[in-house]
């Protein structure tokens, strides 16, 4: 892995990364290079290695071989951690803290200077103000997901890594989250297996299957792969399975 900043425009980089859980391979030589400011979707079937890719990028896993970097930094470094905002699938915030306490705690850990204002803004935008004193365990799944989104974005990250971010959210909240992500002007990688979400949140797609990249390009290029009235989902399935 790289140890220092990189002046090139590459932001999210995985180079020939292999990762296995015991004898079960998760990633098999995966290479990804997302330039700064771009928004990409990581698309693949269940078990393709999407979540593993994100966990490697946030430094919660170590690759067996290959290199991983965020703007040239090792993902386990403090520099990379300051840049990254991460939302895992089915994220669960601290159940022993209230909504506001969660935001204040993570705001403090991340050294957010204007934490109070930022928290008020996020609570308002995500319609969580009325729940700010509530125990997280009491929240509905949708409100818990809103809080998880707020926790991932509290420090205005430059690199945002999201795993199925719109799960459980109602349609108005989905729109607000999309708008918030656009305003942050960050490099975004969204892991999803739902094409409509990929199209709404990103401009490009990386399709992976069995731990390997099988296709990458812009959304327009992906749509252009369609034959006749073929849906984009069918195109992705064809790419994943290698069917002609």
């Amino acid at each position: 892995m790289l140890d220092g900043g990189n002046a090139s425009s590459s932001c999210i980089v995985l180079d020939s990364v292999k990762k296995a859980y015991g004898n079960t391979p998760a990633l098999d030589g995966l290479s990804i290079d997302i330039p700064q400011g771009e928004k990409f979707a990581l698309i693949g079937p269940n078990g393709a290695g999407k979540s593993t890719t994100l966990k490697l990028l946030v430094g919660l896993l170590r690759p067996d071989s290959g290199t991983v970097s965020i703007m040239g930094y090792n993902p386990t470094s403090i520099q990379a951690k300051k840049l990254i905002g991460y939302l895992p699938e089915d994220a669960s915030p601290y159940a022993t803290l209230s909504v506001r306490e969660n935001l204040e705690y993570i705001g403090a850990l991340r050294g957010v200077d204007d934490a109070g204002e930022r928290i008020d803004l996020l609570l308002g935008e995500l319609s969580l103000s009325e729940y700010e004193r509530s125990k997280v365990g009491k929240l509905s799944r949708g409100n818990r997901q809103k809080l998880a989104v707020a926790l991932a974005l509290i420090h205005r990250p430059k690199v945002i890594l999201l795993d199925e971010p719109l799960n459980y959210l109602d349609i108005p909240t989905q729109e607000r989250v999309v708008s918030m992500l656009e305003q942050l002007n960050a490099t975004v990688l969204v892991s999803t297996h739902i094409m409509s979400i990929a199209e709404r949140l990103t401009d490009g797609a990386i399709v992976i299957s069995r731990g390997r990249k099988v296709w990458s390009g812009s959304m327009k290029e992906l749509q252009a792969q369609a034959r006749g009235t073929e849906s984009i989902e069918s195109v992705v399935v064809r790419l994943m399975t290698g069917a002609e």
Partner: protein
Amino acid sequence: MLSRLVKFLIITRFSRGLVAFILVFLGYSVILGTVYNNFETTSNPFFNYYLVGILVFLTVFMVFLGGVALMKSDLDYLFTLPLNRGELVVSLYLAQFMATGVSFLFAVGYVLPYVSGGLAVKAVMAGDIALLALLVTSLSIISFRLSQKQKAFLASALGIWALLPIFGFNYSYTSIFMGNTVAGTIIIAALDVPFNFYAVRQLFDIEIGFLKTTARRAGSEFRRPESFSGLSPVRAIFAHHLSELSLTGRFGIGGSVSVRISRIRLYYLLIPALFLGGIYLYLALKEGNSGPLNVAMLLASLYIGIFTSILFAQEVLSHERAWLAFVSLPVEVYWRSLAVSKILQTYVMMVPFIGADIVLLALGFHGALNTLLFMGIVVPLSPVVTIYFGSRLSVNQIVDTEIMSGQQNLRQMLSLGPILILAIMSIISIVSLIGAVVVVFIAVASDCYLVFSSTVSENMVFGLTEKGFV
């Protein structure tokens, strides 16, 4: 059908390894209790205190942390089947007994050899132990529906009543261990009838109880909000862990899967700690400066060590959120701050015992130096080792709130190893001062390595993530 239902409930709630362990240990205990006879107890009065202590520990533990061995899948599937309600209740009770009361049956092997008298007296004592096991089982079921305040009241009342025979009052359910078998037996039987009747009634409409309990627990805010505004990262971690102790109910030994979240102000916990510290001081002063004092110190050290390890350490990681904590700060910084805050949290709880040891030392009780070293240094350092063992061996117990305590396999049970190590360390500490110093050295060295090594913290987090912690 009943036997099949019982078998189903047992194998879905307990790992085969745990069932085998219980059966082997129970068999060993029964053989021990029947083969050996008439050991002398007069030379060591602390043996009786020890039995009273176990019973106090179990009753208070069951009331506070008990729960019905019930899974959500029981509500979704099992209870929708056309089963005989009576058979279902009997099966649930037996599963509950396996999860709770059976632990007290182990006492057979350690009590009967010391009972002087004929077969009839031994039979009465064996019967009393069986009745106490049923009492413990019923308490764990009843506590399921109680509010925190009701639990605190019941646990305090039973705990204090159980301790009274030590101070000369013989009408308690622990009196059988203090030489008053008749009164003790009558009281145990008198308690068993209403408690078990009420427990069985609760099992008959357990679904309603489960839903009511879940609804009640789901509808509140924290009474006293914490604030982390303007704090540095490390100060925020310390503020969080040194103001309140977070508890979840999943570590209820009955294995109730409804996760209960509660926060207790740390200084509130000083009240029971002061109470126990006072009893420790009283017993030590009462029994003098010789062997019995050492035994008292040993027992106190063991109990406190085990209790603090379970209470303060094993649930620590299950409260953590790796995707927030270990992503916001470098892993080693967060782990170091968390570990040190847990050491300080435990140290606060040990203050009354440390104070008692200092008083004993000032009064010329030389053995108190050994326990001071153990309780003042080794016990507060113990959570770090326990957290580490848990993170390496028992991840699915940390991650999956739908899993029961009894479903641990033998490898996961190894995560409880530090408790055994702590018990051995306490014995070594009491036996010799040099031993106590060596134990302190080992504890300090282990903690320094676990807390300050970046490799340890990184491997811990990578291992946790690989096993599904994030």
